[in-house]
């Protein structure tokens, strides 16, 4: 009773907002955040999930889609892919570059990926070293702008146990140090000048104050104009600037950082995250050697899994740090032996957070994605962790953990409806909802 009451109360707000309400009743909803809900009812409005629960009553007038055989999961998120990207740009050190230019909205691949339940992808720029920043996109839309979910999603960094590789990253942070020193000096200079000015005339100071206020208003207006996914980093930046401004009644405009320095500055400011790609266990230690000094930098770990992989050696260390690791659902062999290692499961057991990508970036790779993950479950990976690995944790890797990745209130209604357990090879996608709209409906096409 109380639930129903609450529900009706909650309902009123979206109803008044005038969105197109739709209720979907399914056999089970794998919410990821709160575990599975049997006989779930999902209420969607304005592209977002408004309510989700077990056997909730629906107010009269709201259309109900009754699909008692479907299983709903959050839309799949591929946190690290080159699918749909152009080949061989071969960059080495262009941390400012975005992968945006590479995508072609007319590529047929997008539609096919969508049909497989993939609703979000992070396209990382091609190259070595520090080739640029990845973007998050949805495989649906008429223009690049339509497809973009977040840009940048993260900074792609490759790190190996080599002097040059480590030096590149060290130097990058050193340049930030230099820049910060420069800013500090400029600020001092500026403050001295201000004092001089104040002494000279107090009237001019007031004028500047007025100008300042105008400036404050502008960014807020931009915020409102922003799309469904306002970028966190911009917001934070603005807030920080505002705070600074408040402290010192007058605006200090720091010199603009070099475009190659800015990404690393953003890393320190936490407005950007880094995806550190490594290959071997030793690389991880060398990565720590460089990155551990940078306490403010938030980073994730990514590695491919091959038969020469010895990452089980550092699984415990990674787990202790509770790192988010992006890897592929692969069973590998221990070096020089035929002993099978389930490294993703070992990482989860050690305490790491896991995001799994398809083993290859091809369409077939995406088709095999969930069955591959299913195999890992069969060999010891906890099912909840596996489900989160293709949805919520992957979304977190893109910095979109608050917006999508699970079936929760206030999250984007990116939902995949399956004919059964998604990890069963026989399971097929029945429908895909992207931003509250059905973009794939198997029955209708037939």
């Amino acid at each position, binding site marked *: 009773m109380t639930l129903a009451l609450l529900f009706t109360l909650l309902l009123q707000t979206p109803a008044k907002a005038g969105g197109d309400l739709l209720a979907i009743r399914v056999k089970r909803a794998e919410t990821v955040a709160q575990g599975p809900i049997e006989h779930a009812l999902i209420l969607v409005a304005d592209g977002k999930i408004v309510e989700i629960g077990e056997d909730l009553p629906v107010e009269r007038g709201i259309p109900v889609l009754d699909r008692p055989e479907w299983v709903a999961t959050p839309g799949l998120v591929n946190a690290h892919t080159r699918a749909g990207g152009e080949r061989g740009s071969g960059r080495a050190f262009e941390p400012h570059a975005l992968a945006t230019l590479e995508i072609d909205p007319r590529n047929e691949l997008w539609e096919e990926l969508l049909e497989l339940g993939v609703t979000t992808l992070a396209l990382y720029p091609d190259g070595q070293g520090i080739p640029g920043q990845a973007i998050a996109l949805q495989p649906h839309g008429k223009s690049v702008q339509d497809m973009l979910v977040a840009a940048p999603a993260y900074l792609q960094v490759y790190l190996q*146990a080599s002097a040059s590789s480590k030096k590149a990253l060290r130097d990058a942070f050193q340049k930030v140090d230099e820049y910060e020193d420069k800013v500090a000096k400029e600020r001092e200079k500026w403050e001295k000048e201000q004092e001089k000015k104040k002494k000279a005339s107090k009237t001019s100071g007031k004028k500047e104050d007025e100008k300042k206020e105008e400036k404050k208003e502008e960014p807020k207006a931009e915020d409102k104009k922003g799309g469904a996914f306002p970028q966190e980093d911009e917001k934070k930046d603005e807030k920080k600037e505002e705070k600074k401004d408040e402290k010192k009644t007058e605006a200090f405009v720091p010199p603009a950082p070099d475009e190659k320095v800015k990404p690393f500055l953003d890393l320190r400011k936490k407005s950007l995250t880094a995806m550190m790609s490594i290959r071997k266990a030793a690389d991880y*230690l060398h990565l720590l050697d460089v990155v551990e000094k940078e306490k403010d930098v938030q980073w994730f770990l990514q590695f491919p899994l091959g038969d020469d992989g010895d990452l089980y*050696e550092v699984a415990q260390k990674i787990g202790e740090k509770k790192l988010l690791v992006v890897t592929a659902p692969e069973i590998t062999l221990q070096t020089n032996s035929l002993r099978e290692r389930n490294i993703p499961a070992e990482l989860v057991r050690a305490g790491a957070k896991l995001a799994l990508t398809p083993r290859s970036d091809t369409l077939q790779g995406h088709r095999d994605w969930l069955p591959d993950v299913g195999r890992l479950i069969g060999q010891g990976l906890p099912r909840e962790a596996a489900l989160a690995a293709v949805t919520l944790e992957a979304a977190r890797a893109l910095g979109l953990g608050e917006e999508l990745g699970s079936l929760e209130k206030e999250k984007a209604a990116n939902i995949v409806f399956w004919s059964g357990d998604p990890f069963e090879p026989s399971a097929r996608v029945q429908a895909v909802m992207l931003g509250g709209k059905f973009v794939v409906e198997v029955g209708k096409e037939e």
Partner: protein
Amino acid sequence: MRRALSGFFALLALSFPGRVAAQQEGGEGGSPPAGQESEGEERKKDDEKDAKYFAIVGGDVYTGSGAILRGATLLARNGKIAEIGYDVVVPEGTEKLDARGLRVYPGLIALGATSRMSTGATAVEGPDASEGTGDEAPPEPEIEIRWDGLLPVPVPRAGQSGATGTEPPDEQFQAEEEGEEKKSEIEDTFDPFNSFLVLALATGITTAQQSSAVVKLKRYEIDGVLLGERHLASIPWDLGNPSGIKSTRDKFAKAAEYQRALRAWRERNDKNLKEPSKKGVDTTANRVLAGEALAHFRASQREELLGIARFAQEYGIRPVVEGCEEGWTVADELGRAGAYAILTPRHRMPKDERFVRPGGASIENAALLHLAGVQVAVRPESTTIDFIGTAGRDLLALPVEAGFAVRGGLPEEAALAAMTIVPARVLGVDHRVGSLAPGKDCDAIVTDGDILHYQTFVQYAVVDGKLVYDKEKELYFAHIRPRPKEPAPAAAEEPKAEVESGEKEEAKEEAQEEQDDESSGEDEKQSDGGKDE
């Protein structure tokens, strides 16, 4: 250093009658500043309350500096050896390694090992690393004869290392100088999980020379792997290239002049006098004469060796001679020069039959050189490490290589030194590794028998007071003569042994040794397999 160390023991009030503090090597070439540094670090660590202890209990400790302590305990504190002896108080929470019935040796040191050992299979062999192996090609086919007056002089064929012209050796000289300016990248490339490193540990190697650097084979971590750098300065000395030898002589003459001028300037301590100019002084020669590096020659023929020995005496430097196949014919001279010889005891080199004098490789080479006072180090024929390497042809058989020298008459103690303290001196790291002594790094190996015996396996390897290799737990040799299971629980035996030793005290040390030997039971007899002594 020794005084400071004993002070440290007094502080800890750990001086027990039974303790035999193995002596620090006297007159060792270890650079004193580095030694002081490490001592400072040690003190700092000592101040920490959470010191980490590691003990190897009950093994026969071969300290590598002469002493053999049977059934003794080796205690390490924060990776450094704190104490070796009997009645050692092992603090609570110490990680213990039961070595009863086993032998404890200092970790072996591999000279000129290929970089695979520290960076894994993907390592690209640099020119520095291949330099060592390239020289091992048998010299016979490359030799030409040049008639110098009436004597035939064997000369390497043109193009090999520049028999004509002065430029090639100069270039080489120069290239090495430049190479030396570079800091070793090993700290940025070290792979502590690579399987070749585990194989090296399985051989007993805990320290390896990797081109110009000396690397500690640490596992699971990358901190503090670089032990030393640039202690060997390669000096060309090739009879086939007389102008090269002349150029070397000139360089040393100039450097010596500079050193004299510098010393004089320092002694006068006159502000009005200018510091002597370094211009035109060869940096390599200068470093050798300043004692910052050892002169490293590659030579095998008698005439070359004689030349090197005399040259070294002229300048008062201790030469390191690699190869040194005919060294036994001029052993006295090399001994007088205080030379180090890096030998490959199984390397074959035929006598040059054009000469009446004795020559060619000899099985007695190491023994005779040792007798003459030359410090002998051993390196195997091939210093690569691999799974496909035939046992005995590569680094996996370093102790067998030394064993071959023993076959030729080298005392066993010298053979052990040839794999431990002598290479450590050659590499300038003898203040840290090379023997088991208080204050040194706790790099030890535990074997199931005489290290020089071909049947012996390394059961455990310890680096910096951490267990890094356990034969039973690694994939490679666990199935070959598995370690016998213990007949009785270890916990029941230990206190008993302590009580016994307490009662009898140090006067009955020998009796206690016997007791210890008996108490460790049958497994010891099995593992020792009668090859003991």
